[in-house]
């Protein structure tokens, strides 16, 4: 193995370890006296587990009929719909929260409709609101994973089933159920993991101490009470929960499911009866309403709010772009260096070492961004003003959080390039920069663009550690939206939401397009 691969890879590894385990150690060292787990800690743990379980269960249960309907129906807009199912992954959380409140809140559309029928208004604060928002985000993700499961079935199986005249229940049992069983546990674990670290949703829709996730409790301990001991203790709990869920998720899931584009269609002969068609139609229509109405509400109110956008929105936009740019650069640097190391270890070195490096790359999934943030504050305060560095620090935390996803995208691409053309390149004596340009660049370019787009969109929409770092008069765009909504400047918040949507999808589109080059143009 050349030092050119080894050194950057080890450096990236060290940085990730420092940002995750190192940060936890720094914070824990400040709060060793923290001691026993108290009742509120248990409650936060219990709520975290309950809501993550329910969110994952609901998302997957609803995703199965949706994926099934999408797999066997052909209709105009089907491709668009399956593509749009990839969109919530890129949608900033705070935007979705505004949309959910506009539809399901006490003065939302659903409450207005109930009121017109003489029924009381809805009250979603607490568990119901958290679940609605989480299902809004994760139902599409779960549906795509299960749809992938259906697509992965060999086409012959459908043909054989049709020839045998298998319909309805027997078809479900023989063909569909195995596909669901192969994909649903992974989807469940992935959704559980995403929801177990939920912060912004619980902050905005929790409605009080009842609905406190561990992540929210960590933020509260640090920012309300400046109780680093409690923050460290909660972070330890969170780490354990997430490490467990992450192991389950990555053991069971195919995490490329967030990739955009329509999935391949398989010819099917079942589900042509009137009942099946009506049910599929109803499922698709209901899901479209559930996912579409909040988006529609954000857009409609956002257009009305565009007039209310002041200079503060544009300043916040600038800050968010800086965060995204730094985060993309750092994500690519970290994940490329680490992916190259992992592939080199897989192909030339020890498989155990490769697996350990791979595992280290997943660590950020179990880490709390707030703990990383607090560790930065503790370490930097003696030498510099951490709050003056709010934007770069936020970007670095975001980069660490995006790295596991980027690694899942880059490792297979680099591995494939190596496996398919590595020998040829060796025999031609391609080395150094030429090897990079000729062998890897054409094959890694598109996944690289996709990873950059993903990390950029995630960073631009992130409402997390910035809440800790931001000096109050210099928020990023998502934080500004949260502040506007909190001070009931709802119109301005919705206007800013439109800007944020445009930025987040724009950044993704730009990088993805750059990655695909002429082929994508």
């Amino acid at each position, binding site marked *: 193995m050349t030092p050119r691969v080894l050194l950057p890879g080890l450096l990236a590894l060290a940085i990730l370890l420092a940002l995750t385990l190192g940060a936890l150690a720094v914070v824990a060292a400040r709060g060793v006296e923290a001691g026993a787990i108290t009742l509120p800690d248990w409650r936060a743990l219990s709520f975290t587990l309950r809501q993550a379980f329910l969110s994952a269960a609901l998302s997957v249960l609803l995703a199965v009929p949706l994926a099934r309907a999408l797999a066997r129906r052909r209709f105009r807009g089907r491709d668009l719909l399956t593509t749009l199912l990839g969109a919530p992954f890129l949608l900033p959380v705070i935007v979705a929260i505004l949309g959910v409140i506009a539809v399901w809140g006490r*003065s939302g559309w659903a409450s207005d409709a109930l009121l017109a029928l003489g029924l009381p208004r809805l009250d979603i604060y607490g568990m119901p609101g958290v679940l609605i928002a989480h299902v809004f985000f994760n139902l599409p993700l779960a549906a795509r994973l299960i749809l992938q499961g259906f697509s992965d079935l060999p086409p012959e199986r459908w043909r054989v089933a049709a020839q045998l005249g298998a319909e309805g229940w027997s078809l479900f049992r023989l063909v569909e159920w195995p596909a669901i069983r192969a994909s649903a546990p992974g989807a469940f674990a992935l959704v559980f993991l995403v929801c177990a670290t939920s912060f912004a949703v619980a902050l905005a829709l929790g409605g009080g101490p009842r609905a406190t996730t561990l992540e929210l409790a960590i933020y509260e301990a640090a920012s309300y009470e400046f109780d680093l001991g409690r923050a460290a203790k909660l972070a330890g709990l969170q780490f354990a929960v997430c490490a467990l869920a992450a192991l389950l998720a990555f053991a069971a899931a195919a995490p490329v499911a967030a990739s955009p584009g329509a999935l391949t269609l398989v010819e099917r002969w079942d589900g042509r009866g009137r009942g099946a068609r009506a049910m599929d139609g109803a499922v698709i229509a209901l899901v479209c309403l559930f996912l579409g109405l909040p988006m529609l509400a954000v857009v409609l109110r956002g257009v009305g709010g565009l007039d209310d956008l002041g200079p503060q929105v544009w300043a916040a936009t600038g800050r968010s772009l800086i965060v995204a740019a730094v985060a993309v650069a750092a994500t690519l640097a970290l994940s490329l260096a680490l992916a190259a190391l992992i592939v080199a270890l897989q192909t030339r070195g020890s498989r155990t070492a490769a697996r350990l490096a791979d595992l280290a790359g997943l660590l950020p999934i179990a880490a709390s961004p707030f703990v990383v943030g607090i560790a930065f504050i503790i370490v930097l305060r003696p030498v510099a003003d951490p709050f003056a560095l709010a934007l770069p620090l936020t970007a670095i935390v975001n980069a660490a959080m995006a790295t596991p996803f980027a690694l899942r995208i880059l490792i297979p691409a680099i591995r494939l390039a190596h496996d398919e053309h590595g020998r040829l390149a060796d025999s031609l004596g391609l080395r150094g920069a030429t090897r990079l340009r000729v062998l890897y660049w054409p094959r890694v370019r598109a996944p690289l663009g996709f990873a950059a787009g993903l990390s950029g969109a995630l960073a631009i929409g992130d409402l997390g550690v910035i809440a800790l770092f931001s*000096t109050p*008069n210099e928020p990023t765009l998502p934080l500004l939206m949260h502040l506007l909504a909190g001070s009931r400047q709802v119109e301005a918040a919705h206007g800013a939401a439109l800007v944020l949507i445009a930025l987040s999808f724009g950044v993704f589109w730009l990088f993805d397009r750059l990655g695909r080059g002429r082929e994508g143009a």
Partner: protein
Amino acid sequence: MRHSLAAAAFAALLPFAAQADDKPTLTVYTYDSFVSEWGPGPKVEEAFEAVCDCDLDLVAAGDGAALLGRVRLEGARSDADVVLGLDANLVAMARETGLFAPHGQDLPESAVPGGWADDTFVPYDWGYFAFVYDTTRTETPPASFEDLLNAPKDVTIVIQDPRTSTPGLGLLLWVKHVYGDEAPSVWERLEPRIVTVTKGWWEAYSAFLEGEATMALSYTTSPAYHVIAEDDDTKRAAAFEEGHYMQIEVAGKLAGSDVPDLADRFLAFIAKEDFQTIIPTTNWMYPAYPAGDLPEAFGDLVEPADSLIFAPEDTPAVRKAALAEWLDVLSR
């Protein structure tokens, strides 16, 4: 080429810190409603800048109690020179942080009932906490905490989080003052009526105005706002027989301020009539120093039978115990 263009675009978006002139800037962390266009902020800024030859930068940094968390997090490196918006209940905790410094100013005698003498924190207004209701929706409001606890189920309230908001903390201590060891069971009975617990006062009050709850925790002086600013006499404070908990809002200078003299002058300015006359009709509280006659609408407000408050030195312990009880009940 494309990359350098992108770099140039990002550079153009970077905020330039250069000042147009060399006037010193006094940075004051305060709460949202203080800096809003209808709050005291704009008038205070105009009045102080007329005499200080400085820029007064009022920064909304969360509700009162969150301000203390913020400066503790930022520590000695905080940009803030003055924090305005803590209250008497937080003074002892704020002093313990060691982040605040005495103002060294010779201030006139305060008009706060019961008096106020402190070398570090300057009171700028005071008032009584109360639940505010709408006469068009509620004919007979509860006349006591007991009434509220026994009221029909559809009498709902919005309150603030005592960890982030001084009114939220005020209610916590009000209940503790009235009920002592019985406070947890009172919270258990109140809990079903709480529509939501907000981070700040304005979020709760506007939820009440939009009809999301029967009453919001606010001040006996809040109705004066509706009478004077909106010519609307339908908002009233419910007078509670047990008495009303008092709030004294204060400002203090941070020891790490880079313009300590300017910060001291600002604290002295707070006690002057120029500042105090702004308070009643913008912050809708009673002035903490003499400010001439109050507007007529202030004459019709609820006068509490009893004015309740814990001694500042007792509040850290009382707060800690009461907060643990509150969290225990409300996180179930």
